[in-house]
């Protein structure tokens, strides 16, 4: 039986404005590529943030690699690309190489110094993601697509077992978005990295993800894309026509 990477049992999270997630029970196995979809405010980002201890869990349990999330500290196993970074300031002085190097700090003990081997590792991941040529450029000077690749390189440089991406394609056009999902798919297969990808785009992600989690504060669907397309619950939710369009974009 494959290893369980993520598990939640009746997970509930609330903000001051009210409950954001209710009764979420999922199990993600090693090698899964899970697309987490749902409308705005459905709790998609809250779920992944709760897993990483970035927001508190009010009820239920959640674990990463079998360790409860509130005790988890093996951060070298996680690669994270958040929803938004404040990098629109074009004079933020970190180069691409410096930015990607920060991803290695999870492997380091205090004082977290990077060695020559670490710099070679950074170069190697930049080459793999086809951004080596811009390694001396400032991160704030890059286009949206290049910036996402660099931040993905940062998330991958520590060779994580679990990659968590929170709406990584929000700033990209539809074509760039599909290429990005495909790239994540390649990484998922080639490196056997488990992927949790939060997105609005349920149609496009279905082409690449092995599983879909549809949230609207509660869990409305969790399974593979074919099941999602056949699901009577999803037909009832979207209407048959919309479900057909969503499932046959590819």
């Amino acid at each position, binding site marked *: 039986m494959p290893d369980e990477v993520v598990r939640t049992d009746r997970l509930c999270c609330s903000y001051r404005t009210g409950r954001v997630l209710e009764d979420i029970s999922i199990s993600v196995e090693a090698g899964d590529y899970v697309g987490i979809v749902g409308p705005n405010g459905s709790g998609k980002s809250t779920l992944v943030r709760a897993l*990483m*201890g*970035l927001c508190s869990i009010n009820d239920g349990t959640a674990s990463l690699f079998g360790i409860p999330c509130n005790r988890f*500290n093996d*951060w*070298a196993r*996680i690669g*994270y690309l*958040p929803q938004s*970074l*404040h990098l629109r300031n074009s*004079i*933020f*002085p*970190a*180069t691409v190489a*410096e*930015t990607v190097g*920060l*991803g290695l*700090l*999870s492997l*380091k003990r*205090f*004082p*977290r*110094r*990077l060695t020559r081997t670490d710099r070679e590792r950074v170069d190697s991941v930049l080459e793999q993601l086809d951004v080596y040529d811009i390694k*001396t450029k*400032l991160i704030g000077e890059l286009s949206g697509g290049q910036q996402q690749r660099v931040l993905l390189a*940062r998330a991958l440089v520590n060779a994580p077992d679990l990659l968590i991406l929170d709406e990584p394609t929000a700033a990209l056009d539809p074509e760039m978005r599909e290429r990005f999902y495909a790239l994540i798919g390649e990484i998922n297969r080639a490196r056997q990295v488990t992927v949790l990808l939060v997105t609005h785009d349920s149609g496009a992600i279905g082409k690449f993800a092995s599983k879909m989690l549809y949230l609207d504060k509660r869990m409305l669907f969790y399974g593979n894309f074919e099941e999602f397309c056949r699901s009577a619950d999803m037909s009832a939710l979207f209407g048959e026509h919309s479900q057909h369009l969503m499932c046959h974009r590819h």
Partner: protein
Amino acid sequence: MTMNIIEILSYGFIQRALLAGTLIAVLCSVLGVFLVLRRLSLIGDGLAHVTFGGTAIALSLKLYSASSLLVSLPVVMLSSLGILKLTEKARLSGDTAIGIVSALGISAGIILASVGGGYNVDLLSYLFGNILSITTQEVGIAAALFCVVLMLLSLFFNDLLAITFDEELARVSGIRTSTINAVLVLLTALSVVLAMKLVGIMLISSLLILPAVSALQLARSFKACVTLAALQGCCSVTAGIFLSFATNLPTSAMIVLLNLFFFSLAFLVRRYFHHKVKNSN
């Protein structure tokens, strides 16, 4: 004006001012890069106002010159942690928390100055700074604290860079962000208290902000940014001391004006190269 540099350098008070001034300028400039990028630029101003209050307490206890640090250092360090706690626990933005602590510091200083009366003149010297009056003992304290701050900065450099880049990403890299934030504000508090004698309470924030923003105009990497900021800090203090001696104008204001000059220069250089690149495309 006719005095040559060797002659100026032969004065003990100039030697002390140059030594302490460059050490403090390096600290403020390097920390300034982190503070500006974290949008905490005005923390220097806030802590300087607290230093005013702390110094007023020290003077009321008849602690003068270097001895006043015994009071102002812990007061300012506690206040810096107070700013941090206010942003974390009271859900206030950084500038609001700085404003609250700053108002508290300055009002405490004014009340104590008004009650004490007799030490108003001493307190005024802290408002505008007087690096040329720095004592050997104060130079020793500045050098010791410089070593401590520089060592801590070097140990926590990558952690500080990580939280400056993105605090959430830093947390998911296993960095204890609350500890690193505390380190940053405590180092700033130490530097502000040291810089008080150099440029005075009124102008401290410019020593933290101006070298950093000049470096941000030109730097092509984070390490280059920190180095350029430190270089500008050193140059402005050294040139400022010589110029103020030669022109008989206040040293602190001269240092700040030189920093403004360097910033304008950096801004123009950046604009020039930006246009050149645009035209070549």
